[in-house]
């Protein structure tokens, strides 16, 4: 069966169930396509269930549509066939693509005001809201699950290697001193590893040191943006990583989150990866661990700045009936409730995306009971975001990230030096940006 006919059957089944459940009452159905699995999928279903029970007019139907790229491709195919979902969860690298699709989406701000729902973009943490807001100040999508890159370390291993386990290495030279101790003391074969190489060592690295990733405010001010990641600071960092890899201090862990398993299985002593990994680490790690700010270079003026987000937001698709948009708006209001936001943050490890949710969590004593869970928020709020650290917006960024990571791998494999790897990244990335610029009219 091809994809389309599967969808038809699914719709038919869903429709039949819906007709059965709704009985005579005409409920408006809202389709919500998402990419949350496991415990996160349960939370998503809880949201829908809670909303559906709270009122009678609308019914939100959450549908898992595969990983982020898959659900996005599915929604695009559905849009072209004229039956897109109402709400689509899109990962942060897809943001520019969604923004470019003017006729395919409805700005969330417009949905809310159109339905007469209260909506205040200023209620969100600036570096979260900024990510989804146009250069003209219109908020396009509804922030949902955001995370940022943080530093994890194995306290038991630190102790064994004779390093103070209560003080996390704050700078990159300190990380490497710790790595050297761990290696030479024979504590572990793997000292440091990282998830999401581009996100951590290009995107967050730049924001954390307040240096641009690209011109035009990292692409947020216009499509004519040009990458600038071959600066001396970037070259210095990549070159260090290459050298540390050569000495065995840094072990490459793959392009996505594979490195997280290397950390919680007790193989590697230190890890930089998503703050959302903490739930998994908590469940699997059989050792004491610490969470800390991302390391930085102390001699860089202004560092550390603030980190930037990953994760996803909710987009409203175009071509639906006004009544359906009203339901979407009501559902968003339900989601935006501070207590629900706080609970989402506490149960998932995603950032509290509003300061109110953060305060609620803090006042409830959650952070004292669960040390380390506030590191991500404090890192996001470390300083007011600058043009270099409020986020990024690049077309075709899925491909571009892969290119950066290919160059990174080729560098670690000894095929090229750091300068060449970053020069190539800039060159290849810029070619993609120009191609995207041509297909997208501003």
């Amino acid at each position, binding site marked *: 069966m091809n994809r389309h006919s599967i969808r038809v059957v699914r719709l038919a089944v869903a429709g039949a169930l819906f007709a059965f459940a709704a009985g005579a009452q005409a409920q408006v159905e809202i389709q919500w396509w998402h990419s949350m699995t496991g415990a996160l999928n349960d939370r998503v279903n809880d949201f829908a269930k809670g909303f559906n029970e709270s009122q009678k007019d609308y019914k939100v139907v959450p549908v898992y549509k595969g990983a982020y790229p898959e659900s996005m*491709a599915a929604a695009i195919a559905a849009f072209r066939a004229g039956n897109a979902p109402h709400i689509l969860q899109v990962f942060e690298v897809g943001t520019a*693509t969604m923004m470019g699709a003017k006729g395919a989406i409805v700005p969330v701000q417009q949905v809310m005001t159109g339905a007469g729902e209260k909506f205040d973009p200023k209620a969100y943490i600036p570096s979260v809201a900024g990510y989804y807001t146009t250069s003209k100040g219109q908020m396009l999508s509804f922030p949902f699950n955001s995370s940022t890159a943080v530093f994890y370390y194995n306290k038991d291993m630190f102790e064994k290697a004779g390093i103070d386990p209560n003080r996390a290495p704050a700078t990159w030279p300190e990380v490497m001193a710790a790595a050297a101790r761990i290696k030479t003391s024979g504590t572990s074969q793997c000292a440091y590893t990282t998830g999401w190489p581009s996100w951590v060592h290009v995107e967050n690295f730049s924001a954390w040191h307040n240096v641009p990733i690209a011109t035009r405010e990292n692409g947020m001010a216009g499509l004519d943006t040009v990458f600038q990641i071959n600066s001396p600071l970037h070259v210095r960092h990549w070159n260090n990583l290459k050298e540390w890899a050569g000495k065995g201090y840094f072990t490459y862990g793959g392009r996505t989150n594979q490195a997280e398993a290397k950390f919680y299985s007790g*193989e590697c002593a230190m890890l930089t990866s998503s703050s959302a990994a903490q739930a998994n680490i908590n469940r699997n790690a059989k050792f004491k661990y610490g969470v800390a700010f991302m390391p930085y270079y102390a001699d860089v003026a202004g560092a550390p700045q603030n980190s930037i987000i990953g994760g996803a937001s909710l987009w409203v698709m175009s071509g639906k009936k006004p009544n359906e948009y009203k339901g979407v708006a009501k559902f968003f209001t339900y989601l935006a409730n501070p207590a629900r936001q706080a609970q989402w943050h506490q149960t998932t490890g995603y950032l509290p995306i509003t300061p109110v949710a953060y305060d609620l969590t803090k006042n409830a004593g959650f952070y004292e009971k669960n040390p380390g869970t506030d590191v991500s928020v404090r890192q996001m709020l470390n300083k007011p975001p600058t043009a270099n650290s409020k986020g990024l917006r690049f077309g*075709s960024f899925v491909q571009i990230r892969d290119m950066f990571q290919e160059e990174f*791998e080729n560098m*670690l494999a000894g095929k090229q030096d750091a300068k060449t790897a970053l020069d190539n990244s800039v060159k290849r990335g810029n070619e993609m940006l120009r191609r995207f610029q041509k*297909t997208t009219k501003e």
Partner: protein
Amino acid sequence: MEKRVVFRSRWLPYLLVAPQLAITIVFFFLPAGQAIWQSLLQEDPFGTSTEFIGLENFATLFADEHYLASFRVTAIFSVLVAGFGLAISLVLAVFADRVVRGAGVYKTLLIWPYAVAHAVAAVLWLFLFNPTLGVVAHWIKGLGIGWDPLLDGNDAMVLVVVAAVWNQISYNFLFFLAGLQSIPKSLIEAAAIDGAGPGRRFWTIVFPLLSPTTFFLLVVNIVFAFFNTFAIIDAATGGGPGQATEILVYKVYKDGFKALDLGSSAAQSVVLMAIVIGLTVLQFKWIERKVQY
């Protein structure tokens, strides 16, 4: 008297071939036509702005050194998969043909891997070869050889080739076994009486008589390596490290479905289509001449 069935009705023959034609048109000609049309367009993923740009997608592709590198990777990968796949299964089939006791068990075991989905096979081998957890990786390291498919392109290539070959051996094995069993025993016995040893009997009698099967399998294996292996690549390496295992069909998938660059992806699939048509024509023109039916 000659027996012939002739269709008296004018529409019946058309009706009888209609289902086959319909399937071919719906599942081959229409998508292929759409791919060709799409390859001439530049549009955003949602199709809200479409522009006809002629052959620009192709021009961009062939100016991209990384796309050209993908050809080399595909050639190496296909030759390795088809070569090893055919050689190993031929050896296994020749042995299976000689086994007297327990032949059924032996054959069944050899056919099993074919039932394993490509992606599952890839994950299986990925585990065996995982530098930290894998048994095989442990052995390799025990031999004093460095093993890191995450960074070493050759190691990654070995990994995907092993997974693909393992998955394809059963299919090849079945055909070779059937081919071997259809070779008249009298020919081999006659050669044996004339004093030809097992090696000579194989190369002068069995192998040439097996050539139609070998030829058929060669075509099938090349097509398999070109088209059906993307699940293996996706699950095992994702095309990395660098672009060491990024074969053409994987790039089509990645650019089209993950990166949503439809124009380029369509252009790539048109190129791929041309290559496979060209290869098949070549194979039939050149190699088939040497095949003895």
